[in-house]
């Protein structure tokens, strides 16, 4: 009984962190908790239909684009780690080191998100240094495939490039699957992008909802909504977005806007690159995209955080959990399985939650999960008796 309580807590953390900034003091507060949203099946379906599109949203465009603040363009002066990096080093140092447990053997099967493929491989490679008898086999066919695979292979580990809702875990529960648990293992930061010439200073959660969902009337959708003055104020805001079936759009609808109907883009773009390319040619455009997908001719609009002031969109803000809009990447495993293979799979989750695993997540292009999330996951594993 106690344990299942813990289960719900951990999976709740996974869901809630994405919208954790929706506190009453600013506009973010009005988002409904994701669990009340009736569209879970839609999102599942969307992900199944277009597994490739979900992964693309984690990306950045490879151009000669400069990085975000603090990253000079490619080919510039040699990189010298500065004070900001030292701060990040300290934060990463706060993640628990991995302490291997037990003698493990067998094959761990991993299914799911293609976007997480290289991260899981990096984990597997390092994991094998501690557990040479364990082999890891990864099948990356998309997040939409994950739960179906778990039902077929209860001892497997499945990966989803999005948070997991408690109902989803309930649904997957059966005679074969006793105790499915979701662990948040990495994050992707999302940013709001506008044309480089756009004078808007920042955007709050409330403004974000007014712009991107059908909560406000179409007629009101003008740049004055974002406190823009001057000639642009009376001009319409144009949504630039990927197709509704893309993973990013499904995530935004289900987890950021609480299932509200979203405005659609005039043209459904294929990839993040297309989205930013279109935005660079549209002074009235606005879009939500991976924060790392910085392109030429566009800029990131700072998000207004809990304190009512804009949060910087740098790595430290994301890592420390200040940054309001992130998407959690999740591993799901059935802790009820006790076979050697399942134990090895559980231990791989343990590894992922520790420092080595989180460093590998960074190398794979993601952000680490927040420290409290990692701890919650570790505690949950710890409490499970078999370890």
């Amino acid at each position, binding site marked *: 009984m106690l344990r299942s309580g813990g289960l719900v807590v951990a999976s709740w953390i996974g869901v809630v962190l994405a919208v954790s900034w929706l506190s009453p003091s600013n506009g973010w507060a009005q988002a409904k908790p994701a669990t009340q949203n009736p569209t879970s099946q839609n999102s599942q379906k969307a992900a199944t239909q277009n597994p490739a599109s979900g992964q693309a949203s*984690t990306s950045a465009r490879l151009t000669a684009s400069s990085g975000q603040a603090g990253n000079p363009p490619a080919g510039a002066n040699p990189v010298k780690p500065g004070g900001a990096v030292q701060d990040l080093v300290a934060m990463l140092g706060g993640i628990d080191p991995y302490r291997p447990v037990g003698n493990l053997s067998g094959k761990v099967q991993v299914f799911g998100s293609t976007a997480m493929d290289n991260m899981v491989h990096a984990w597997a490679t390092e994991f094998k240094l501690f557990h040479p008898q364990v082999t890891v086999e990864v099948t990356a066919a998309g997040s939409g495939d994950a739960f179906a695979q778990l039902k077929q292979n209860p001892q497997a580990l499945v990966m989803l490039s999005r948070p997991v809702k408690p109902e989803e875990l309930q649904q997957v529960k059966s005679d074969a699957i006793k105790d499915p648990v979701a662990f948040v293992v990495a994050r992707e930061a999302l940013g709001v992008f506008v044309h480089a010439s756009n004078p808007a200073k920042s955007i709050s959660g409330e403004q974000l909802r007014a712009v991107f969902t059908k909560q406000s009337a179409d007629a009101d959708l003008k740049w004055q909504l974002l406190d823009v003055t001057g000639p642009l104020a009376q001009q319409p805001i144009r949504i630039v977005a990927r197709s509704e079936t893309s993973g990013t759009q499904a995530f935004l609808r289900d987890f950021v806007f609480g299932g509200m109907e979203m405005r659609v883009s005039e043209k459904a773009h294929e990839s993040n690159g297309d989205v930013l390319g279109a935005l660079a040619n549209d002074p009235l455009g606005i879009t939500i995209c991976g924060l790392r997908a910085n392109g030429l001719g566009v800029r990131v609009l700072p998000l207004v955080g809990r304190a009512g002031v804009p949060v910087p969109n740098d790595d430290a803000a994301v890592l420390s959990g200040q940054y309001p809009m992130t998407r959690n990447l999740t591993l799901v495993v059935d802790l009820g399985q006790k076979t050697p293979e399942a134990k090895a799979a559980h231990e791989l989750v343990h590894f992922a939650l520790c420092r080595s695993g989180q460093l590998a997540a960074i190398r794979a292009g993601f952000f680490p999960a927040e420290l409290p999330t990692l701890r919650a996951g570790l505690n949950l594993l710890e409490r499970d008796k078999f370890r």
Partner: protein
Amino acid sequence: MWRSSFRVAAIWSAMCGLVCVSALPVQAQRFTGPINNSSDLYNNLPAWQGGNWLGTSLVPTQDWKLGVQTDDLEIGVLVRQVAPGSAAERANLEVNDLIVAVGGQQVGIVDGRFVDFSAEIRRRADQSGNVSLLVQDTRSGRLASIRVRLDGNQSALRGTVVRRDRAFLPADARVTVSVQNISRPIYVVRNGEATYSASGQNSIPFEINYDPSYIDPNDAYQVQAQIVSNGRIIYHTLQPVRVLGSSRSDGIQIEVVPIQNTTVASIGSPVISAGYGSVNDSLVAQYSQIYRRYLGRNPYDVELAAFMVSPNAASELQTLPLNLMASQQYYDAVGNNNTMWITAVFQQIIGRAPSLQERDQWLKFFNDLRGSRMEVLRQLANSKRV
């Protein structure tokens, strides 16, 4: 709690040790004692009791080399030392093995006359350096005829690692000289690394007997050296030397300079100041270079921080190119579909565009591998090496 994390640290540092310093004391012994700062180090070799490194001619010629140090006996030639990475090691020769004959000719002291083993292997090796040896195995006592592919003189790089300062180096200081592929840094050159003791000398002679089958004529190569003590790099090379291709392979001079934030005691106790982590500016520069090459940008702050926290940064550099090519960012950048991605990584790893047939073959393989990008990259890298 404290104790177990300490244990992890110990494991890591042990692994780092394996990676950084593959200590090869055998070769180091060859040059004990001070050596003059001479360009021709082979004329300044201290006398070695017990024999020569056979085939190491003072005059570089078309000679062949087995890589053993021997004593001539009346029953044959006794192996005293086996050079790491040498032809002898590849042929599983061991210390105390007895080489009785070369290509049918008995060697050692034969009927009171001296039959020079090194002259004999040069004489009897065929054009590609193959020679057969009759060897008495030290363990079983059995005689066996083995065929050895000798190391050619031309697949060795020789030179000196020079320190300009006169600082005292601790006894455990080791210099590692390595050949690196600059064009495609993920390729290692087999046997392309040699480690020697560095203490007490300002110029350290080195010789790398790399495996020539790992050298691609289209690629550029460099050598660089670093001195490691107490698990940390204390000297490194600011300007690696270009080698192979049209460059010379003899008399290479590599200068190493102390790493800034490290203090090396100038006199007296061999104390190296404590610093945290093994990541230095040169590693960071390499790390950033790989990011620019594969993703067209410098690493983000958090990526730099992850590298600096990493317990085995040096070995991480080795796998970084594959990791980056497997990343979503790279995948999107090259066109966001499997065909374009396969074409791009094939070009990167193999060094040319794939034929239509090759492309389709790898695409099919990609599907067979259950859509795992990292797996495809590893297989591609392996296919290149075979």
